[in-house]
């Protein structure tokens, strides 16, 4: 056989995993030790004294090492296997089981939460965790088209999110159009702005492109702040109409969802509806991305990322290729933006700062550029992690009432960034899945290639 390696499943190298876990622990200690382990407080005489918080430090390091070992065992392990059998078609076993499992989990999540916590307690969990994370997954997947596939570094992605949000807010308030009409319209408007950004930056790449897109994001935000007649400036827009279920609103009136279906009114219905709405939008993004990768345009994006000059000499129009990448990515941000406006009922330029672009980009980069799974893991870890810190009230019992875990968000964020870039410089999932496979029984001798579907 051409490929003996694939037959013997590579066994786990426990020694290596232990060594890496040790290094992880040391790095975590070095980074976190001074920040977490030591704290200065004022005593009764207003003197600064140094206190130690070794238990917290130990707990955090244990968590980090645990995550590291988990990844070594279950996630990165896979990438190593693939490298070894690179020449042949690899059966992506994990993906085959992970995808249905993950989808099932997403669909059942609100039900589980409801069953466990009841209607009152679960809003927070479905909204702050479910919806919030899904918004970022969707934004990550949208930006992934621009950055991960086409290789165009975009630091102003949040501008298109803003365009979508303001499109919905203004058109819904001023013209009374429904969410379902405005959702596609917001996508179209955002992709239109994607093309507007695309034109001036056609000749730019890398750093220069990043700077111009950054400026573009700021320009949109500054316009929203300063053009008060149009966007109501800093004050933002409130009272944005909420989405309806094919005309049935989620309110306490006689025509509301609860009344129509003979249920007792509760805000939980709207939350669950919004959850499934953003889930559908996010899955649409993923589905389109997967499909496009197998179509000429998606392949052209990836080729563009690799070598622009070669693309041109193969007859690919790099101008339209870039513009479609910007437009497609922007469209999904537009969808997400109009969803965001409809969910919040209130938007202001505050929500569309550079920090948001940076967060979305961080999700794409940490996840591994181009990888849909990587975006999911990174979004769950970053967004979910942030939200989770708010919930860690029990830490107050350990460290006293003054302890506020959310203050450590940025610190942990930075530490996570540094750590991931040290261990996985190309992101959590850096293996790129090929889109083309040889069919067997071609004139090519079958022994060269393992089975695959074309």
């Amino acid at each position: 056989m051409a490929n003996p390696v694939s037959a013997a499943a590579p066994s786990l190298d426990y020694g290596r995993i232990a060594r890496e876990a040790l290094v992880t622990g040391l790095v975590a200690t070095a980074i976190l030790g001074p920040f977490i382990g030591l704290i200065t407080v004022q005593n009764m005489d207003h003197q600064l004294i140094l206190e130690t918080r070794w238990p917290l430090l130990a707990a955090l390091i244990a968590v980090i090492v645990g995550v590291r070992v988990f990844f070594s065992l279950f996630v990165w392990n896979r990438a190593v296997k693939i490298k070894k059998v690179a020449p042949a078609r690899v059966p992506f076993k994990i993906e085959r089981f992970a995808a249905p499992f993950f989808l099932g989990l997403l669909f059942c999540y609100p039900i589980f939460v409801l069953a466990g916590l009841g209607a009152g307690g679960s809003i927070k969990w479905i909204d702050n965790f479910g919806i919030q994370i899904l918004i970022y997954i969707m934004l990550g997947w949208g930006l992934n088209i621009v950055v991960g596939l086409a290789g165009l570094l975009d630091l102003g992605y949040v501008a298109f999110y803003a365009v979508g949000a303001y499109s919905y807010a203004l058109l819904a308030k001023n013209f009374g159009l429904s969410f379902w009409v405005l959702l596609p319209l917001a996508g179209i408007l955002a992709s239109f702005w994607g093309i507007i950004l695309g034109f001036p930056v056609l000749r730019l790449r890398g750093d220069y492109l990043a700077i111009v897109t950054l400026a573009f994001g700021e320009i949109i935000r500054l316009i929203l702040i300063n053009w008060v007649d149009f966007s109501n400036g800093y004050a933002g827009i409130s009272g944005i109409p909420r989405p309806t279920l094919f005309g049935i609103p989620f309110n306490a009136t006689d025509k509301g969802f609860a009344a129509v279906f003979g249920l007792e009114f509760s805000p939980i219905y709207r939350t669950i509806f919004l959850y499934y709405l953003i889930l559908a939008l996010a899955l649409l993004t993923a589905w389109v991305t997967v499909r496009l990768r197998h179509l000429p345009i998606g392949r052209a994006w990836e080729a563009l990322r690799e070598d622009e000059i070669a693309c041109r000499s193969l007859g690919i129009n790099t101008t339209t290729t870039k513009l479609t990448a910007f437009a497609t990515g922007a469209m999904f941000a537009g969808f997400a933006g109009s969803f965001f406006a409809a969910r919040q009922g209130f938007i202001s330029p505050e929500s569309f700062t550079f920090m948001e672009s940076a967060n979305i980009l961080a999700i794409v980069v940490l996840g591994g550029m181009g990888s849909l799974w990587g975006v999911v893991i990174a979004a769950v870890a970053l967004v979910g992690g942030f939200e989770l810190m708010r919930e860690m009230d029990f830490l107050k019992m350990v460290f006293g009432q003054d302890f506020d875990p959310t203050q450590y968000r940025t610190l942990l964020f930075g530490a996570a960034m540094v750590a991931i870039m040290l261990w996985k410089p190309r992101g959590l999932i850096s293996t790129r899945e090929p889109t083309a496979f040889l069919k067997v029984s071609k004139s090519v001798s079958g022994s060269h290639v393992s089975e695959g579907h074309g």
Partner: protein
Amino acid sequence: MTEPLLTVRGVKTYYGNIIALKGVDLDVHEGEIVTMIGANGAGKSTLMMTIFGAPQAREGRIVYAGTDITRMPTHMIARMRIAQSPEGRRIFPRMTVLENLQMGAAIDEFAHFDEDLNQVFSLFPRLSERAHQRGGTLSGGEQQMLAIARALMSRPKMLLLDEPSLGLAPLVVKQIFDAIRELNRSQGMTVFLVEQNAFHALKLAHRGYVMVNGLITMSGTGKELLASEEVRAAYLEGGAH
């Protein structure tokens, strides 16, 4: 004599203010193999890229199959069925061999991909063994084969090859030159070849040109150039065997 497939007349190409081609005239007829030799920095690659419109000629005219392509954008030139294996190969490193070959068929939206795949695989069996390997991990010679194979996937009428033998073992060079000869003989493909390996390239060619400092200084049949004293002294000394 019929119209040449490719006509280059008085072409001057600049990089900024520096002139790289100082007025080049050259013809390639349909079904010919034409070789261009010249020292490093003579402007051979520049000519090849100028034919492809990147950079564009500042003066002069380039006509291909009766169409003036001097000011045409690169991707439109490629769609006229001129394919190129450029200097430095420029394959897509993270994409697999198969995906690289697909990109070669991009102008027809992969319509005849499967058919042509068999053809390039029989030309370069090595590539079929490596079909699912990432382009960047191929050896230099395999990358060169891939670059040529990718160019062939667009079903070109004319093939431009910039130093296909660069860095390859003599046996692989022979393989590649055999493949070129075979393409020319069986399909009548027109080939314009830039080479440092002057002896083999001129032996392969119907006609040849010598470029010095951005100007064509000699032309003739492959045999004539091989026999010429000047060519022997400048490009073949010690190389002929």
